[in-house]
C-alpha cells in the first residue's frame, strides 16, 4: 500500500503546499485572493501539477467569450447533486488560477473549470476532461487578443480527436465550426443575439445566410447542426422533447441559455435536467455580477458587459424606461486599450432611459451617445452619477476593470 492510492508525488505535494503558502502571503499583503500567484509558484515547481491534480477528477471545462464564469457556477451547482465539486469559482481562468483552485480541494469528485478562450486547447490537453462546454465566440479586446476566427481555429485544432463530450452552442457558427472536428458533440440550441462575427463562413469564407434562427453557408454547405437540447422561452427541451422549466435568480436570456447548456452538461454525468435546473436556482450573484447593492440609500444592480455581444445581451435584460442607467467604461490593459468597440454597440436601445456616464473613458461614451442622439450626463464618479439619477433602481453597466472599481466603491 505505498504511493499508489495517493495521486500526488512528493514533488507535486510540495508544489501544492508552496503554492498555498505564497497565496496566504499574497492575501496577507492585501493583493487580492492570491489564487493566481499561488498557482503560478506551484506550476513553476511542478509543471505537470495541473495534469496530476486533474487526474482523479471528472473534469468539465467551460469556455466562451461571454458567460463562462456564470455557467461554471451553474454546472458546479448542478453536479453537486452527484458528488463533491471543485471549481475555479472566482473566475481565475488561466492555468495558474486553475491549478490553484484544484489544489484547494482534495476530496472532490468533479472538477468544473472555467478556461480563458486562449488557453482552452492547452488546458484540455492537460486535464483530460470528460466534458467541454463551448458557449459562444465573439470579438473581444482586439488590441491584444487573437482574431476571433483564429481562436475558433485554435479550438478546432485543439479539440480534434478529443475524447471529451463537447456540449456546444448550435446557434453560433464559429462554435459549431470549432466543435465539429470532434467526434462526440451534443448540440444545444442556446441562441445568440450577436451575429456580427459570423457573417463570413468560418470554413470557406462564403457569405452566411441567416433566415430566422437558421444559418448556413450558401457556398460550401456548412450549416447549423440539428440540436438535441434547446432553450425555448423559459424552458429547456431535453433530447426526449420534454420541457423543463428554468428557475433562475439570475436575469436575462443569456443566463437561460447558460442554464440550458449547463443542463446538457449535467446530463452527461447522469444528473437529470429537473434536478440540475432546480439546483441552479441557488446561484445568485456570481463574482458581483447581477448583484443588487445599496449605495447612498439607492438600489443599484451591477451588470458586467465587456464587449459588444455582452452589451447587447445586457440591454435586453435591464428594466424598461424610465429606469435610470449608469454606464462605466475603462480601457486599462485588462479591458483592452482601444475603445473603438463602443461603436459596435447599439446605444439607441437605451432611448428613454436617463443615462449617466462615468469611468476612465467617459468622454468616449459621451461622443458615442451624442452620435446615437441620446440624452446623457457626464459625471465625475459613481457617487455623483447616483445623485444625478432620477428615482428608481439604477442599472449600472460596466466593463471589466470599471466593474471592479464599482464593486470596490459600493463595498461589494
Amino acid at each position, binding site marked *: 500500500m505505498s504511493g499508489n492510492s495517493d495521486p500526488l508525488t512528493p514533488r507535486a505535494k510540495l508544489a501544492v503546499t508552496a503554492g498555498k503558502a505564497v497565496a496566504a502571503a499574497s492575501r496577507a499583503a492585501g493583493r487580492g485572493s492570491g489564487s493566481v500567484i499561488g498557482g503560478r509558484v506551484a506550476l513553476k515547481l511542478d509543471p505537470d501539477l495541473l495534469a496530476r491534480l486533474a487526474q482523479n477528477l471528472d473534469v468539465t471545462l467551460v469556455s466562451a467569450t461571454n458567460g463562462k464564469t456564470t455557467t461554471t457556477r451553474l454546472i458546479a451547482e448542478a453536479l453537486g447533486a452527484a458528488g463533491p465539486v471543485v471549481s475555479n469559482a472566482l473566475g481565475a481562468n488561466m492555468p495558474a488560477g486553475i491549478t490553484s483552485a484544484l489544489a484547494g480541494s482534495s476530496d472532490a469528485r468533479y472538477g468544473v473549470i472555467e478556461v480563458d478562450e486562449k488557453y482552452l486547447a492547452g488546458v484540455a490537453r492537460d486535464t483530460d476532461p470528460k466534458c467541454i462546454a463551448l458557449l459562444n465566440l465573439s*470579438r473581444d479586446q*482586439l*488590441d*491584444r487578443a487573437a*482574431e*476571433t*476566427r*483564429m481562436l475558433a481555429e485554435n479550438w478546432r485544432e485543439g479539440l480534434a480527436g478529443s475524447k471529451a463530450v463537447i456540449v456546444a452552442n448550435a446557434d453560433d457558427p464559429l462554435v459549431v465550426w470549432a466543435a465539429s472536428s470532434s467526434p462526440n458533440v451534443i448540440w444545444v440550441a442556446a441562441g445568440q443575439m450577436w451575429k*456580427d*462575427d459570423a*457573417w*463570413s463562413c468560418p470554413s470557406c*469564407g462564403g*457569405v*452566411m445566410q441567416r433566415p430566422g434562427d437558421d444559418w448556413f453557408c*450558401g457556398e460550401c454547405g456548412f450549416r447549423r447542426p440539428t440540436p438535441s437540447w434547446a432553450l425555448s422561452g423559459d424552458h429547456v427541451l431535453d433530447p426526449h422533447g420534454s420541457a423543463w422549466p428554468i428557475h433562475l435568480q439570475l436575469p436575462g436570456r443569456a443566463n437561460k441559455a447558460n442554464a440550458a447548456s449547463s443542463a446538457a452538461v449535467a446530463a452527461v454525468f447522469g444528473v437529470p435536467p429537473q434536478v440540475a435546473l432546480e439546483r441552479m436556482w441557488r446561484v445568485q450573484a456570481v463574482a458581483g455580477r447581477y448583484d443588487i447593492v445599496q449605495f447612498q440609500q439607492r438600489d443599484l444592480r451591477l451588470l458586467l458587459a465587456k464587449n459588444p455581444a455582452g452589451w447587447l445581451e445586457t440591454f435586453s435584460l435591464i428594466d424598461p424606461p424610465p429606469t435610470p442607467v449608469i454606464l462605466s467604461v475603462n480601457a486599462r490593459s485588462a479591458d483592452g*486599450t*482601444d*475603445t*473603438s*468597440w*463602443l*461603436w*459596435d454597440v447599439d446605444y439607441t436601445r437605451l432611448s428613454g432611459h436617463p443615462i449617466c456616464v462615468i469611468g476612465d473613458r467617459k*468622454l*468616449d461614451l*459621451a*461622443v*458615442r451617445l*451624442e*452620435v*446615437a*442622439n441620446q440624452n446623457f450626463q*457626464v459625471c465625475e464618479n459613481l457617487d455623483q452619477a447616483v445623485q444625478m439619477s432620477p428615482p428608481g433602481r439604477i442599472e449600472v453597466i460596466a466593463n471589466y476593470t470599471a466593474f471592479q472599481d464599482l464593486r470596490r466603491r459600493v463595498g461589494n
Partner: protein
Amino acid sequence: MSDNQLRVVWIYPDLLSTYGDQGNVLVVERRARQRRLDVARLDVRSDQPIPTSGDIYLIGGGEDRPQRLAAERLRRDGGLHRAVENGAIVFSVCAGYQILGHEFINDLGQREPGLGLLDVVSVRGEGARCVGDVLADIDPRLGLPPLTGFENHQGVTHLGPTARPLAQVKLGNGNGTGDGTEGAYNDTVFGTYMHGPVLARNPLIADLLLKLALDVNALPPTDDHWYEALRNERITAAQQPA
C-alpha cells in the same frame, strides 16, 4: 449629390467591420443630419453589388482572411472604380486602406492585388505590431486640426509618387515606414491606419468628406463640445509616457 439626397455607402460590413469603424458611418450620418441633409445609408454585403451612384463610400478594418476575401470581391465587382470615376469620395481605414492600394500581403503570406485607387503598396512589418494612441499633424493643404486615433496593425504602407501623406505623426507609427507619414490621399480617395473610430476622434475630417461631396466650402456649425473634450483628453494621453 443627386435628388438632394446624400448617399453614404458602407462597404462589406460582413467582412470589414471588426474594429468599430462602423462608427465612421454613424458620425458622417449624424453630422450630415445635423446640417439638415437627407441621408441614405446603404450597407453593402460582400455578396451584393457595389452601387456606383453613392456620394461617400466608407471601408473599415478587418482581420486578415476577411481582408483577402473583400479584395477578391471588390476587384471582381468593379463598382468602386466606377464610383470614383463618377467623383465619389472614398474614406478607408486599416485593412480597407491597404485594399485601396496596388497590393498588400494576405493571410496566406502572398501578395494580393488591391484596387489601385491609391498609389500605395503595403507589406508586412518585421517589427512589433503597431498598437496604441497616435497624434499627427494633418497635411496643411487640408486645413484641419491635429489627427488623433488608435492604431492596431502589422502592415507597413509605402506611398508612391501620386499619393500624398494624410498626416505626419508626432507620436505613434502611422504608415510604419519610419519617415513619419500616416495614411494617404489622392483627390477624393483617402486611407488611414487610424481607428478610434477616426471620424469620432476627428469630426472635422467627417465634415471635409461632406464638403467634398456637396462641393461647398463651409457647413453650418455644430455643437462639438464632447468631441472637443474627447480630443483634448486623447491628445494629452498620447503625450504621456506609456
